């Protein structure tokens, strides 16, 4: 078990390093920040000064090593726009994003899983077909379309909820519903197919043949097995807690990481973009790590021989 954990941790660290490298290379390849920030017709001396100030005149590999080296100490450089440490800018936006993504996650899991289980248990019933139709609509519709529809209905027509901004908790309601609805649809679909797969397994019939009542067959024999594939999807969703709201935050003018990313990219604020990518990557990797651990806990076959003996 220890080896299993250690190997997963090593893999996680390598993934983060890879993402950092990738972000660095892509951002440097995509244009000279000095020209973009200072505009092309700025005086050459000013551009030279800017480059020196940000270390852009040094060889690329030197820049890379210094970037990685500083990153290890938690220093991601300063925002090229306002000079504050990039990581601080990013971290202060995290609570706002979590304020909409966490309730949305609760909605996805709390609505999606029961709906999926219900649909699987009543396969081909009217309720099953309805659930699946709603779920198809839910995940084929792009989130900005859903967001605009919700705004039209609840803000423009009914006037119940504010359409954009973040002045009070009511402002969070529409972003949460927008994020939660499509996730719940995906969750319902995956849960349904995981459950149907499990219900077709010989051990379900064998449990019934043993005399176990049907409710208990579902709760004690089917659900623990259906939970295993579902965990992958929940893992994805946890992974997107930080970065999954880019579009929705932009539509609703919600001051989270997503909006920061959009503006930082538009401004070519390299340090901020790198810091955001770093935070997102770290979070994703942590989420994946947790999923792997959850697998080991839920599925004894993954725990393997090392854990059993």
């Amino acid at each position, binding site marked *: 078990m220890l*080896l*299993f954990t*250690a*190997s997963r941790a090593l893999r996680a660290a390598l993934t983060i390093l890879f993402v950092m490298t990738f972000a660095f290379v892509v951002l440097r390849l995509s244009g000279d920040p000095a020209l973009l920030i200072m505009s092309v017709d700025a005086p050459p001396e000013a551009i030279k000064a800017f480059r020196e100030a940000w270390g852009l005149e040094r060889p690329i590999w030197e820049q890379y090593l210094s970037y990685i080296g500083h990153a290890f100490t938690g220093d991601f450089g300063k925002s090229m726009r306002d000079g504050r440490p990039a990581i601080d800018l990013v971290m202060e936006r995290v609570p706002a994003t979590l304020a909409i993504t966490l309730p949305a996650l609760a909605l996805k899991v709390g609505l999606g899983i029961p709906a999926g289980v219900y649909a699987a248990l009543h396969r081909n019933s009217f309720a099953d077909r309805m659930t699946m139709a709603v779920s198809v609509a839910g995940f084929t519709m792009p989130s900005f379309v859903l967001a605009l529809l919700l705004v039209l209905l609840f803000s423009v027509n009914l006037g119940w909820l504010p359409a954009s901004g973040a002045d009070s908790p009511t402002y969070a309601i529409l972003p949460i519903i927008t994020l939660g609805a499509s996730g719940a649809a995906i969750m319902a679909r995956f849960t349904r197919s995981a459950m149907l797969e499990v219900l077709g397994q010989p051990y379900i019939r064998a449990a019934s043949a043993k005399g176990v009542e049907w409710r208990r067959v579902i709760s004690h024999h089917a659900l623990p097995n259906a939970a295993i594939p579902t965990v992958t999807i929940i893992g994805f969703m946890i992974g997107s807690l930080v970065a999954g709201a880019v579009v929705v935050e932009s539509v609703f003018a919600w001051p989270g990481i997503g909006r920061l990313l959009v503006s930082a990219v538009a401004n070519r604020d390299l340090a901020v973009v790198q810091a955001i990518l770093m935070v997102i990557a770290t979070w994703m990797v942590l989420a994946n790590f947790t999923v792997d651990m959850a697998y080991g806990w839920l599925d004894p076959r993954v725990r*393997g*021989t*090392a*854990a059993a003996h």
Partner: protein
Amino acid sequence: MSMTLLEATGLRRHYQVRAGRGPFGAKAVLRAVDGVSLSLKPGRTLGLVGESGCGKSTTGKLVLGFIPPTAGTVRYRGTDMPPAGTPAWRALRPRMQMVYQDPLGALDRRLPVGVQIMEPLAIHGAKSPAEQRDRAAGVMAAVGLQMHQFDRYPHELSGGQRQRVVLARALMTEPDLLVCDEPISALDVSIQAQVVNLLLDLQDQMGIAYLFISHDLKVVRQVSHEVAVMYLGRIVEQGEAEDLFARPLHPYTRALVSAIPVLGPRRERLLLQGDPPNPVDVPSGCSFHTRCPFATAACRAETPALRTLPDGRQVACHRVEEPALQVAA
């Protein structure tokens, strides 16, 4: 006496496996095939029997060069088998074909069976489409398929018919060796007999040699001239088919033969204890000693070689000639 068609000597196939988990898990060697020698004459059948995991299927793939051996050689008509993937090896492919257990898995469900039957000629031979079709018609007739089935898709045929399609495809290049890996195990009892009879007829007509791999001793006895019994990657006994089943000598063969339920009067049964050992952790000495009712200290220490007895039977057992064993049988 005709020359030897296929001769395999000292074939080994070992796999590196992880006994533990993760990249730091302990490594171990799985000896799937551990020193198998066999030879096959044209038009003859060698049956290869044993329980799951004994290495019989791996042996089949090794002799065709589908997987490279860890050690050992395969000679075809007196010359070494060229390494897999080389032009020389590909040139030999039409001479040797493989027939698998699951005909549906071996066929492409999107293509009519006729197209699939002609496929080997399209790959190996330079025949015109008309000639290919003529040959396919001939082969289909030989395996008992009708021409109107040429345009059918695999799922439109029954299990027995699909296995005939697989056989027809294998026969297109007029091979002189077929390796059949559990060719009838997926078929219903009443269909198995049809395919067994077909295999025997094809051998009579075309002089094909079979390496017939199966766990079904009765079917192996029905089709084989000679039978080799495998246990944990080695041949433990080999001999003439009827004689071997009537008078098994190795304790494992005896247990295996006596374990087969039969219709007639009930026979004395030699019941083995426990499961076969894990092929990653093969017991020392004679690998059967952990389940053998006759094992002695010598059996635990020393691996018995496969030796030929005066009557021609080959057995790998230290104690096979001892009277004690004869009585116990």
